[in-house]
Each structure stands twice: as C-alpha cells, then as structure tokens.
C-alpha cells in the first residue's frame, strides 16, 4: 500500500513550508514535493504607490535580508529618477550590504544549520537548536552571536535600525559614515574574521569525518548564476551577471537590466514558489542554481586574500569543475562571510568612504528601472514601471531563494530517496530531508513576496487516503 509522509512545518529556515513524501508498498520513496505555503502579493499591492516608497515597502518581504530588498529597490529607483549614486554613496551601500551578508550568513551557519553539525543530525530535537549549542559550546555560541551582531550594527550605524533600515534614496543615501563608526568597525572586524575561520575549520573537519555524506547528499549537475567583477571575481553588490554550464563552461554574461532576455519563471501548482530558468533552454532543462554555491562556481577567484586561499581549495573540490553537492553550500557560505568581512576592511581604507557628498540630484522620471544585486541567498531582481509622475504601474520581482526552487525540490527528492525508509520512520531521517532545504538557507517570505512560512509533521497516508501513521515534532 502506498503511503504519504508530510513534514510540516520545515523549521530552522526562513518562511513556512512543508514536505510531502510518497512511499510505495516496499517502503521505498517514490516521489516528494516541497510546498511553500505563503503568498503576500507585493507585486500587486505596490501598484499606485510613489516609486520612492518602494525601498521602505519591499524590505518587508523579508526580515532576514531586508537590506537586499532595500538596496535592490534603491538601485531600481536611481534609474527611475534618472540619476546615479555618488562614489561615496555607492560604497556606503556596498558596506551596508556586506553588513547584511555577515549577519545573514553568520546566523545561518551558527544558529540555524549549525546545530545539525554541532549537535548531530540525530540529536534530540529538544536540544538540536541554538539553545543546545549554547549549552555544549558557550564560547563558540557567544562568538557567533557577536559575529551576527557585528553585521547588524554596521546596518544600524548607517541606517538607524537593524531590521528594515532607512538609508538608500534615489541617487544616494541619507547620511555619511561617522568617522567614529569607521574606527569602531576597524577595531572589531578582525575578531569576526577569526570567528568565521573557527567555523571554517570546524566545518572542514566535519566534512572530512563525513566524507561519504558530503558526496552523496543531493549531489547533482545544474547550471549556475551570479554577479561577477570585471575580472571575473566574486561580486555581491554590483556587476554583470554570468551563467556557467554544469561542466563549468561559459553560457552567458549580461547586463542585469536585460534579465528578461535570459531568464523566465515557471509556476508549479503545488507551491507558491516560482521556479526561474535559463530562457533559451526552457523549463526544466534551463535550471540553474544561485546563492553561495552558484556564485563560487561562477566566479573565477576572490579579490581578498583569506577568502581567496579558501577559494583555491574550493576549485579543487571537483577538479576545477563546479561543485555539485548541496552540503557544500555551507562551506561556500562561510567563504563568502570571510570575503564580506575582508571587503568591509578594504572599504574602510577607501578614500571615498568618509566623503560627505552622499546624494546626487535627481534627473527626469524615466518610467522604468531594474535593480539587481546578490542577496545572501542568490540573485535578486526588482523591476518597476511608473507613469510620468513616478507612480508605480507594475512591479516584477525575482527573489533570491526562487533561483533555487527547482534545486530544493530535487534535493528533497534525492535526500528522501536516500535516507527515508517508509517501513521504519525515524525523526533523524526526516531531519536529513529537511536539511536538504535548510542547506539552501531559503527565505520563503521573500521568495513568494509572494509568500513565506515553514514549519513539520509527517503523515503516512495509504493509497486509499487513510492516515496510517503520524510523526510530529512536538
């Protein structure tokens, strides 16, 4: 008799989702689905607002990466206002964006996904969370909390608030960097690089001890996409978009404003999360992956020394070809955290950083603007159309997590088939399936700007529809 298992809600991820797993008579998994359950409708309800309100409205799609929305929106507004940010404003936005990368990546590794590595995939769910980590390794836990706080404080010092800051305006930012805050950042930053390196060495030894799991946990080919600098290096705030194929060969490089020529989105009726793909290949052949894994597979190198020495190791993981294993997202995330911290340091020494010319005058309303950057979870697109007065007529957003929508569903399927035995369910099996989602660090409120909420309950449902067994985490 076929059975269905439901994991609801998926936890230690941002947003609301559930997983359903179908099990055949022999207890083997036949299929599985990842359902994102929330939809809010930013693309509709922003119509009729003034364009310059968008940098305050759209961050509410996501409280974990509000800065990404705030700045992508501000970039779109620059274009609509017919202006461009001053050099100082551009660098201060980049600085705030690095604060966001540090806090989001830091929190994900240490506070959301970390408990699986530190406490174990099969640990009691009552302690398999940040509170449990505080119990077994308070020193590391406090350092991790401070790492996240450092990123959040960079955001607050620039934008007054840690969550939903007020900073970007068309043509610039609201205020310069206080020299005292620059001193504070320089005093603090090395401690946080050290904490991240502790995380990297912990993860590397875990990867070594669990080599088999690394090489069998949702490993599959795909194309990859991310921003790059002019020399092909990793870029997170502003640059050209590059796509590479599954074997690492070049596919496309383009101005992000032209994204509609290269990217389209597919709707799957079982989820509110849309799945973007490379338009020329169609769905599903054109699937690509984004986020830390996608970016490191696309970039040729990293232009900061400590991150680059890890990047060299990254490029050796699969003999120079893209790294395919889903668990490697974690390593990539920590490498990017080191880059973000080093880049913050570099920005502090930039002659423009204490400049006071922080906003350029507006031009004429152009009627259309695209803003693109690399959010912690992947490439984020904001595209607005206005009338001649700047009133929003239409909005299109492709959100970072959506870039991995197909990959998350596929990873769940692979993990379920590998780890779930329908004849003898354990909580740890299900946690591994959840981790297939968690490794992507999805942000579902975002991705469905649509929608977002993720909690887990597993039901075994017979082919006649009767509930045979329920496994809940409560």
């Amino acid at each position, binding site marked *: 008799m076929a059975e269905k298992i*439901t994991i*609801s*809600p998926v*936890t*230690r*991820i*941002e*947003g609301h989702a*559930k997983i*359903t797993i179908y099990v055949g008579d022999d207890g083997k998994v036949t299929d599985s*689905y990842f*359902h994102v*359950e*929330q*939809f809010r*409708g930013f*693309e*509709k*309800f922003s119509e009729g607002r003034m364009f310059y309100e968008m940098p305050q*409205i759209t961050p509410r*799609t*996501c*409280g974990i990466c*509000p800065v990404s929305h705030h700045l992508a929106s501000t970039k779109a507004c620059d274009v609509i206002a017919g202006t461009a940010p001053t050099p100082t404003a551009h660098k201060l936005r980049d600085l705030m964006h690095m604060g966001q990368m540090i806090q989001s990546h830091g929190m994900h590794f240490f*506070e959301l996904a970390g408990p699986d590595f530190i406490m174990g995939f099969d640990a009691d*769910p009552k302690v398999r*969370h*940040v*509170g449990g980590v*505080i119990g077994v390794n308070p020193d590391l*836990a*406090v350092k991790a909390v*401070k790492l*996240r*706080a450092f990123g959040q404080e960079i955001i607050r010092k620039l934008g*007054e*608030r*840690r*969550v*939903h800051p007020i900073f970007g305006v068309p043509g610039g930012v609201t205020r310069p960097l206080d020299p005292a805050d620059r001193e504070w950042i320089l005093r603090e930053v090395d401690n946080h690089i050290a904490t991240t390196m502790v995380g990297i060495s912990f993860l590397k030894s875990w990867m070594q001890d669990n080599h088999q799991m690394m090489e069998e946990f949702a490993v599959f080919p795909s194309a990859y996409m991310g921003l790059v600098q002019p020399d092909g290096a990793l870029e997170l705030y502003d640059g050209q978009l590059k796509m590479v194929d599954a074997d690492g060969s070049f596919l496309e490089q383009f101005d992000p404003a032209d994204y*509609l020529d290269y990217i*389209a*989105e*597919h*709707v*799957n*009726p079982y*989820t*509110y999360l*849309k799945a*973007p793909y490379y338009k020329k290949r169609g769905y599903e052949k054109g699937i690509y992956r984004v986020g830390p894994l996608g970016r490191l597979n696309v970039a040729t190198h990293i232009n900061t020394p400590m991150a680059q020495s890890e990047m060299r190791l990254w490029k050796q993981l699969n003999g120079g070809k893209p790294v395919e294993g889903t668990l490697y997202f974690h390593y990539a995330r920590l490498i990017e955290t080191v880059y973000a911290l080093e880049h913050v340091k570099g920005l502090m020494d930039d002659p423009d950083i204490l400049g006071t010319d922080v906003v350029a005058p507006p031009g004429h309303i152009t009627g259309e603007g695209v803003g693109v950057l690399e959010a912690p979870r992947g490439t984020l697109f904001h595209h607005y159309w206005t009338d001649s007065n700047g009133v929003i007529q239409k909005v*299109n957003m492709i959100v970072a997590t959506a870039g991995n929508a197909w990959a998350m569903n596929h990873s769940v399927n692979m993990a379920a088939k590998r780890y779930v035995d329908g004849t003898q369910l354990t909580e740890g099996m299900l946690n591994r399936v*959840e981790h297939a989602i968690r490794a992507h660090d999805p942000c579902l*409120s975002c991705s469905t700007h649509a929608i*977002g*909420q993720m*909690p887990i*309950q597993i039901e075994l449902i017979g082919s006649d529809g009767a509930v045979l067994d329920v496994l*809940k985490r*409560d």
Partner: protein
Amino acid sequence: MGKIKVATGWLESCAGCHMSFLDIDERIVEFFKHVELTSSPITDLKHPPIEGVDVGILTGGIGNEDQIHEAKEMRERSKILIALGDCAVTGGICTMRNFFPLEEVLRRGYIETESTVDGEIPAHEDLAVLTDQVSGIDEVVPVDIYLPGCPPTADAIWFVLTELLEGRMPKLEGKVLKYGMDGG
C-alpha cells in the same frame, strides 16, 4: 525557580520580528537560563506542547487558513499570548493586499508578471488556502499583550520578556513603544 516555557510562531510575516528577538545578542544566554524554548521557527519542535506553555508569542498576521489554525492552537496552549510586531497587532504591511481582490493579486503574481511563462494560479490539496482579507491575530483569537513595531526593538522585546519572568504584567509606554529613529 523552574524554567518558564515559551513557544513562538510566525504567521503572515517577514521573519523580521524573530530577527529583532535575536538582536537581544548576548542576552540570549541569559534567556536560555530562564526559558525552555519549545516550538519555534528556530527549533525543530513543530507545535506548542499539548500540556501548554506559559507564554506564547505570535508574529505575523492572518493571511491563510493554516494560520488561523496555528493561531488557535497557540492560544489554546498558552497562558499568556503576545501579539508581537505590527503584522500580529494589525495585519501590518500585509494588509495592503486588502485593497485588491485576492484573485487580482494572485493573477499578477503567477500569470501576468513579465518573467512568468505559461503561468497558472497555484492550487493543491497540500497548499494553504488564502483568506480574502489579511488581519491582525485578534480577529481570530483573544490577545493578552500587544507589542507593536516593524519590528519592535530588541530592547522592547527584552523588556516584555523580563517583566514576565519577574511575574509582572509588562506596562507598555514611552520608549518601549517608540521605534524607528532611536536605534531600533
């Protein structure tokens, strides 16, 4: 003194209120000394324990049928229920969709958007049905403490939690209700 049991949940929201809670920074060590955190988006416990918790915290408003069920479950199992953040208190920014028919909002998202090809409005037996209107949680269940803010500051959240730990009902006034321009 035994630990007090707390459960938290997010409904129609952006997760920013939980981020503001994590912004208590190192105070989280103190928090875990006094609190047993049961179900929460940051743990793997999916529902508040049947025997109940001392304090239930809900962030986010009501925007789909599952959230109505979750709000009721949290209410039934909590001695004190806190509506934390603007969305829980009034529905917040999510209520902007109330100005449009639901059908139009879905059509824009899944059919009309410029990057969408061959779109359709998602519908599935495992997908929550959206409510016509978004509201605060007190349209569905009675609330004991309202803490507004988008999000409320970490200090405001800490004040409410520590007052409850001291056995007092928090009195929200002055700076606790001010947010946005003073470091929140």
